[in-house]
C-alpha cells in the first residue's frame, strides 16, 4: 500500500486510534477466517506436496537440478514466462487504452472481443491456431503456401499470449477508468503536449497495473500445462516436466520437487512486483475521477492505435470463427462438409451432464472467490500492518502454484478424512469415494485458483483510493464494516466486477488441477475437452468450446446486470459513468 507524503501522519494517527475501537475486532475475525480458509485451501495441500518433495525421489531431483538438462528446462520456463508476460501486457494495455481514450464505432464489440479469450477453455486457441497456422494450416498452407513449424517456443508464445492477455486487459481497463483525468488536464494546462502527458503523467499512474498484469501473465504462462503438452514440441518447461514425472514416472516426489522449483520464479517476480509497484505508485487523491478521460483526437495516433487493435481483433475473430465453424463441419480444413454429429455427440449423455455440473460448481465458487479475494485485498491495503505481506503472499499462492501440483496436493490431502490423531475434522472431500462425489474439492480448487485475481484487482483499485476517504467516513462515526460497505465497495465496484467475471471464467476454463480430482460422478467440461483433443476429435472439442463460451458469456452478462443493479444508489451515477 502506498500513501502520499501528506497523508502519512494522519494515517498513522488513525491506525493508532482504531486499535482501541471495536472495529479492530471485525478485522481480527476477518484475519482469523482468512488465515483459516487459506490454510485449508492452499497451505495444507502444499505441505503434503512438500513432504513428498523431501522424500528420497524428490531429493534426487534437487541434487540434479543444476544438470544441464534441468537448467535448460528452467531457462525455457523463464523465457516463456517473460515473453508471454511482456507481450500479453502490451496487448492488454493497447486494447484498454483504445477502449478508454478513443471514440470509434464498434468500441463495445472490441471490448467483447478482448474478453473472448478469457472464456475460452485451454486448447481452444491452440487447436484453432494449429488448424489455421500449422504446417497444414488453412491460412499458412492453403492460402500462403508456407509450412511453418509452430511447435515449441513460437507457438507457445503466440497461443499463451492470446489466451492470457485479457487478464492484463481487464486489469488495465479497471485501473485506467478509475484514473483522475484532471491530472492529465493539469499537465496539459501547464503546457505539456499529449505525448509528454502520456509519458510523465499517465504511464506512472499505470505502473501498478503494468506490474500486476505482468505478474499475472508470467505466473499463468509458466504454470500452464495444457498448451505445452499440445503445442510445446521439444520445448520442455517445468510444468510439463513435473507432469511427466508425476503421471509418467509415477514419481510424485520428483514432480513435487520440480514444482517447488517452478514456484521460485513465480515468487521472485511477485516480490519484485511488490517492491516496484510500492515505490512508484501514484494515488489519485479524490479516489474517483470527476469526469470522463479526454478523448484522443490526433489523427496519426488514432490511425496507429486503431490499426493495431483492428489487426488484433481480426486475429481473435478468425480464431474463434475457426472454433465455431469447426464444430459444424466434419473435419475443418480437410473435409468441410456441414455436419451436426459433433453437437449430437456433445449434447447427449456425458456432455450435457458435464455442462450442468461444471456451471453449477463454478457458480458456487465464484461469489466465494470474489468475496475472499476482496476481503484479502481490503485487509492488506487498509487494515493490516504486521503480517500484511504474509496474507498477501498466501492469497496469491493459489495462482502461483502450478495447477498440476495443486491437483496432486488436493488428491493427497482430501482423498481421506482429515483429522488430528483419531479426531476427524473433515470427511474425505476429493475423489470418487468422497461426499457429494468429490464436488466439494473441485469447488475448493475453483475458489483458490480464482480468488487471487479478485485480490489483485482489488489491491490495484484500493491503491488508487486515498485512505483519507476511509478516514472521513470513520470520523463521521461509521464503523469499519460500514465504511467498507458504503464507501470503499462502491468505489472499487469495477474491480470487484472484473474479479468476479474473471473468477467465474477461470473456474469454467481451469484444467490442470482438475485432471487429478475429477470423478466419474462429477464430470468437468475442460477435462472432457482434453479427452476429445487427445483423441484427435477436434470437431467435438470445438463444439464443447463453443458451448462453454456461450455459457460463460451468458453468465458474465447476468453478472454485469446484477452487480450494477445492487449498487448503492448514491454512487450509481458516478460508477455507471466509469463502467461504460
Amino acid at each position, binding site marked *: 500500500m502506498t500513501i502520499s507524503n501528506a497523508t502519512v501522519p494522519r494515517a498513522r494517527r488513525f491506525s493508532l486510534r482504531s486499535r482501541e475501537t471495536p472495529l479492530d475486532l471485525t478485522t481480527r475475525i476477518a484475519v482469523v477466517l482468512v488465515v483459516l480458509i487459506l490454510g485449508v485451501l492452499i497451505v495444507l495441500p502444499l505441505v503434503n506436496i512438500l513432504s513428498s518433495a523431501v522424500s528420497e525421489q524428490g531429493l534426487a531431483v534437487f541434487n540434479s537440478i543444476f544438470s544441464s538438462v534441468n537448467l535448460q528446462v528452467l531457462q525455457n520456463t523463464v523465457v516463456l514466462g517473460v515473453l508471454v508476460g511482456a507481450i500479453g501486457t502490451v496487448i492488454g494495455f493497447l486494447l484498454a487504452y483504445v477502449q478508454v481514450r478513443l471514440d470509434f464505432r464498434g468500441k463495445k464489440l472490441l471490448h467483447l472481443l478482448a474478453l473472448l479469450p478469457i472464456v475460452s477453455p485451454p486448447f481452444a486457441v491452440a487447436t484453432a491456431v494449429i488448424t489455421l497456422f500449422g504446417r497444414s494450416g488453412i491460412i499458412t498452407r492453403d492460402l500462403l503456401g508456407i509450412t511453418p513449424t509452430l511447435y515449441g517456443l513460437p507457438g507457445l508464445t503466440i497461443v499463451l499470449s492470446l489466451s492470457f492477455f485479457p487478464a492484463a486487459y481487464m486489469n488495465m481497463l479497471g485501473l485506467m477508468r478509475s484514473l483522475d483525468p484532471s491530472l492529465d488536464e493539469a499537465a496539459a494546462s501547464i503546457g505539456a503536449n499529449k505525448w509528454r502527458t502520456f509519458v510523465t503523467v499517465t504511464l506512472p499512474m499505470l505502473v501498478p497495473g503494468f506490474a500486476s498484469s505482468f505478474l499475472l501473465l508470467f505466473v499463468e504462462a509458466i504454470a500452464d500445462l495444457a498448451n505445452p503438452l499440445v503445442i510445446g514440441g521439444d520445448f*520442455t518447461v517445468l510444468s510439463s516436466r513435473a507432469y511427466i514425472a508425476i503421471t509418467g514416472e509415477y514419481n510424485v516426489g520428483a514432480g513435487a520437487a520440480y514444482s517447488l522449483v517452478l514456484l521460485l520464479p513465480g515468487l521472485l517476480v511477485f516480490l519484485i512486483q511488490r517492491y516496484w509497484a510500492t515505490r512508484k505508485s501514484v494515488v489519485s487523491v479524490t479516489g474517483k475521477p470527476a469526469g470522463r478521460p479526454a478523448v484522443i483526437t490526433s489523427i496519426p495516433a488514432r490511425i496507429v492505435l486503431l490499426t493495431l487493435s483492428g489487426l488484433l481483433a481480426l486475429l481473435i475473430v478468425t480464431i474463434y470463427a475457426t472454433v465455431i465453424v469447426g464444430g459444424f463441419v466434419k473435419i475443418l480444413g480437410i473435409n468441410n462438409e456441414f455436419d451436426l454429429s459433433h453437437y449430437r455427440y456433445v449434447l447427449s449423455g456425458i456432455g450435457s451432464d458435464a455442462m450442468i455440473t461444471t456451471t453449477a460448481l463454478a457458480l458456487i465458487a465464484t461469489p466465494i472467490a470474489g468475496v475472499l479475494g476482496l476481503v484479502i485485498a481490503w485487509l492488506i491495503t487498509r487494515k493490516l500492518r504486521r503480517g500484511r505481506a504474509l496474507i498477501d503472499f498466501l492469497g496469491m499462492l493459489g495462482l502461483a502454484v502450478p495447477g498440476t501440483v495443486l491437483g496432486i496436493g488436493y488428491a493427497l490431502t482430501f482423498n481421506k478424512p482429515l483429522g488430528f490423531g483419531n479426531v476427524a475434522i473433515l470427511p474425505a472431500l476429493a475423489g470418487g469415494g468422497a461426499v457429494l462425489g468429490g464436488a466439494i474439492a473441485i469447488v475448493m480448487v475453483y475458489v483458490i485458483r480464482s480468488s487471487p485475481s479478485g485480490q489483485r484487482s482489488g489491491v490495484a483499485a484500493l491503491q488508487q483510493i486515498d485512505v483519507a476517504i476511509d478516514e472521513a467516513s470513520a470520523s463521521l462515526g461509521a464503523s469499519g464494516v460500514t465504511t467498507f460497505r458504503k464507501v470503499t465497495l462502491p468505489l472499487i465496484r469495477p474491480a470487484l466486477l472484473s474479479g468476479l467475471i474473471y473468477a467465474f471464467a477461470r473456474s469454467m476454463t481451469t484444467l490442470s488441477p482438475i485432471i487429478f480430482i475429477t470423478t466419474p460422478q462429477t464430470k468437468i467440461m475442460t477435462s472432457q475437452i482434453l479427452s476429445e483433443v487427445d483423441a484427435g476429435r477436434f470437431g467435438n472439442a470445438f463444439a464443447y468450446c463453443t458451448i462453454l463460451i456461450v455459457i460463460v458469456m451468458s453468465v458474465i452478462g447476468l453478472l454485469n446486470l446484477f452487480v450494477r443493479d445492487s449498487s448503492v444508489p448514491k454512487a450509481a451515477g458516478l460508477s455507471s459513468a466509469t463502467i461504460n
Partner: protein
Amino acid sequence: MSLALLMSGCAVTSTDSGDDGSTGSDELGGSITIACGAMEDWCQAMTTAFTAETGVQANFVRLSSGETVARLDAARDNPEFDVWHGGPVDGFGAARDAGLLEAYDSPNAAAIPDKYKDADHYWTGVYVGALGFCSNTKVLDELGVDVPESWEDLLDPKLKGQISTAHPSPSGTAFTTLWTQVTRLGGEEEGLEYMKKMHNNVLQYSKSGTAPGQIAGRGEVAVGLVFSHDCVKYQEEGLTDLTVSFPKEGTGYEIGGVALVKGSKNKTAAQAYIDWTLTAEAQNIGPTVGSYQVLTNPDAAVDDRMVKLEDVEFVDYDFVAAAAAKPGLTARFDAEIAAQPKE
C-alpha cells in the same frame, strides 16, 4: 426386473456366496467406478451396456496409464476406482508392483488364451493391438518418401521433423515403441541409441499415445507411431489420407487389460464387471464404436478392419520385464533424449 431378481437372490444365497470375504456387499447393486484407458466413446459404450445388463451403475473416468497409476497411488487409502479397464498392461504391471491391484481369477478368464493373462491373475487381457506406422500419403508424396516399411526408414533425413510419437512417460503406446526397440536391438543402450537417432526426425513428443495418429492425419507430420487400430479409427472418422504399415524387422504389441483395484468398496460388482468384459458379447461392443482392436475372447466377432496378427512380424515382447524396467527407462529417455537439442 433383473434388479429384483438379484435382490431376492441375495437374501437366499448370501451364505454360499460370502466366500470372497467381503461381507455385506454381496448383492449385485450399487455403483462401481472404472478408470478407463481406452477411447472415450469405447468407455462410454462399455459402461452403458454393463449398466443395462446388470443394473449396477457403472461410471468411468478416461485416464492415460500414467495418470491412472498416479491417482491410484494418491488415493491408496480410500480408492475412488473399483476397476481399471483398457490401456497397455505395462502400466498394470507397474500398478501391481506398487501394490495397487488385487489378484482376481475370473471364471470367464478360462476362455482367454494364457498369453493374454497375468500368471498371478492381477490382470486379464481384453484386447490386443499392434504397433504400426500411421502415415499421411499426401505428405509423404510431397516429400518424395515411400510409405515406411522398416524402423530404419524412419531415420531418413528427408523425414526431419516429420515424425510424431508420444512421450513414453505418460503414454503406454510410446513406451511400447521404446520397449520394442530395446527388445529388437537386444538391450537398453541399443534401444536408446536408436531413439536418439530418430529424435532428429521427431517433431514433438505428445502426451497422448493416440495423438500422433491425428497429427499425421491432419498433415502436420508424415508419420505417426501408434497402435494400428487407432490409425484405422482416424481413417474412419474422416482423416482419409492415412495408411497403416508395419516394420518388417518386427513390431511391438499391447495387451489391453482389465484389473481389480485393491480396496474396492463394491468388490462383488467390480468382479462382475471384470467377468463381463471377458465375454464375447462385451468385447463385440468395441467395433460398434470404431475401436478395431483384436479381441482376446476367441468367440468374439472378427472384423475386416482389425489387424491380422498372423500377417505382422512381432518382437518377443516381455510384459513383466517391460513393467519392471519402465520407471528407470522412461527417466533415462527423458534426460538423455527428449530434452536434447536436435542436430
